[in-house]
């Protein structure tokens, strides 16, 4: 039997919110996926740190194009430490560092801080913010910025060849994401081992809106524009870019069960 689906190699970390894509529970229309080792940069679909992608694009590298799918993101005030004496911390993540320096400079605060993962237990460091979560929620309420760490990219040549490919990939990620969040509220069984996780999700929706972890360009515009602004100020790129130009154009996903 012939299979005319487009073969695609996909390299992703073991994200819970993309699990149903890997398991095959969420189908990829027109695509025959093979999932390969995380970090395989030659895979047709893989992830890049947002800083690397934005810098590459600014340098004219268009071999890959991002989808507005943001698997990895997080608030960064909890990454900020101040050092005393001898400090041993891992090399800071470049994307996180751009957000941290950008938002501190924006507030006119001293940006000579140490950046390390939250609760890193690094010697000689103490958190810059005692109650980082509260500061992060306040920051989001004021700015609408929910820092994005990585983007999913596709080889541009494939997107040029198959005009439906970007939207089909996007919708599959979106469906997997929605199903993940529905699992957190599943009352037939606890799909994650976190007591009262549905209560926590309700609280998250108070802070972040119904879609607590949105994909798509528009719901993420404030974040992406902040990142590009910070990257420009910090000379990662030379001039402000229109964030729309960074992403493949995708049809928004419409859930027909929503009664549209």
């Amino acid at each position: 039997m012939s299979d005319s689906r487009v073969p695609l190699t996909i390299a992703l970390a073991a994200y819970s919110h993309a699990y149903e894509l890997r398991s095959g529970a969420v189908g990829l229309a027109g695509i025959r996926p093979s999932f390969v080792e995380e970090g395989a940069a030659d895979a047709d679909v893989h992830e890049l740190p947002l800083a690397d992608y934005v810098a590459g694009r600014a340098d004219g590298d268009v071999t890959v194009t991002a989808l507005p799918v943001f698997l990895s993101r997080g608030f960064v005030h909890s990454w900020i430490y101040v050092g005393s004496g001898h400090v041993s911390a891992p090399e800071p993540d470049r994307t996180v560092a751009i957000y941290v320096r950008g938002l501190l400079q924006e507030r006119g605060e001293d940006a000579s801080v140490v950046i390390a993962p939250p609760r890193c237990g690094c010697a000689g460091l103490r958190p810059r913010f005692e109650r980082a979560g509260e500061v992060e929620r306040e920051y989001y309420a004021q700015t609408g910025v929910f820092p994005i760490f990585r983007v999913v990219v596709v080889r541009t040549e494939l997107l040029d060849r198959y005009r439906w490919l970007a939207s089909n990939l996007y919708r599959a990620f979106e469906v997997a994401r929605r199903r993940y969040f529905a699992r957190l509220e599943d009352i037939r069984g606890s799909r994650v081992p976190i007591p009262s996780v549905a209560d926590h999700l309700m609280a998250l929706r108070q802070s972040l809106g119904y879609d607590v972890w949105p994909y798509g360009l528009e719901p993420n515009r404030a974040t992406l524009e902040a990142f590009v602004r910070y990257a420009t100020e910090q000379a990662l790129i030379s001039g402000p870019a229109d964030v729309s130009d960074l992403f493949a154009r995708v049809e928004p996903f419409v859930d027909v069960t929503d009664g549209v």
Partner: protein
Amino acid sequence: MSKPPRFTFAISSYDHVNDVVDGRIPIENAEPLFIRLPIPEMFRRFVIARDWDVSEMSFVQYGTLRAAGERGIVGIPVFPSRLYRQSAIFVRADRITAPEDLRGGRIGIVGWANSAGVWARGALSDMHGIAAADVTWYQGGVERPGRAEVIGPRYVPDDVKIVRVTDRGIEEMLWTGDLDGIIVPSPPASVEASISSGGLIRLLYEDFPAAERAYRDQTGCVPIMHVVALDRALFEQDPDIARRLYEALERARVEYFASLAQRCPTLVPIPWVDEHIESMRAALGNEVWPYGVEANRPTLETYLRYLRDQGLVDGGFGVDDLFPEWQAVTDER
């Protein structure tokens, strides 16, 4: 090493279990074939027909059967599903405005030995002093009438009144006013719609997060809904399989919590989940979702107290009678 046993293992999809099902975390010296079907069907077919060698099953049914002398199933203290059931109680707003109003009332249930129901009734008793005998219980199907219990109650105290309903669903009886409330593991569509539109049928606890928190703080429990059990034939053939199964599932659980702590890439997309877990540690201890007997002793004692109060087990059955085979093949006492 002996030849690895081949066996079937029926279990639902859980983020803390799927690495075992997908083979990323192997079960040492074993050749499992995983089966995934809707939960009620998987459970019923294991309990009644023993269609699989290893199965997730209702924890209330497990305890009830073991206490009644059933030795054909051998449990391991792995608890894939745990849920507070404060949000499983639905009431008529014209009659019930506070939990205490349920005293003397009529409540529909899907089965006396239903895990959600046992924990919900236990919580009504612990938090509001409403004992099983203070309510008349109507057991039946939710939408479709005549649902029979997979296993029925055995020692129901004389003063507990359970009425079997065969001609109507308990959902209909709630709307017509023949019931004041229902306790169901998942609400039917009409109840769901009523809750979201502020209609006649409401949650008993409109602020169920607060009710769950109060219950957690008072009891230190995370109610256990499901357990993993083996058909005794497999256990007899290879008793150590109980240990190997436990270890693979425990490793998947531990790795889940490691992935939860990872901040880039964010393998689990739940912002501020560390604050949420931290907020429960005063009540639950450092491990908020442990497997094993010792780490769950307070929850298991509460569970057996509820089973005794509700007539599902008799007085002589204790925590160490739940998993004696597993305790014997591991070092846990």
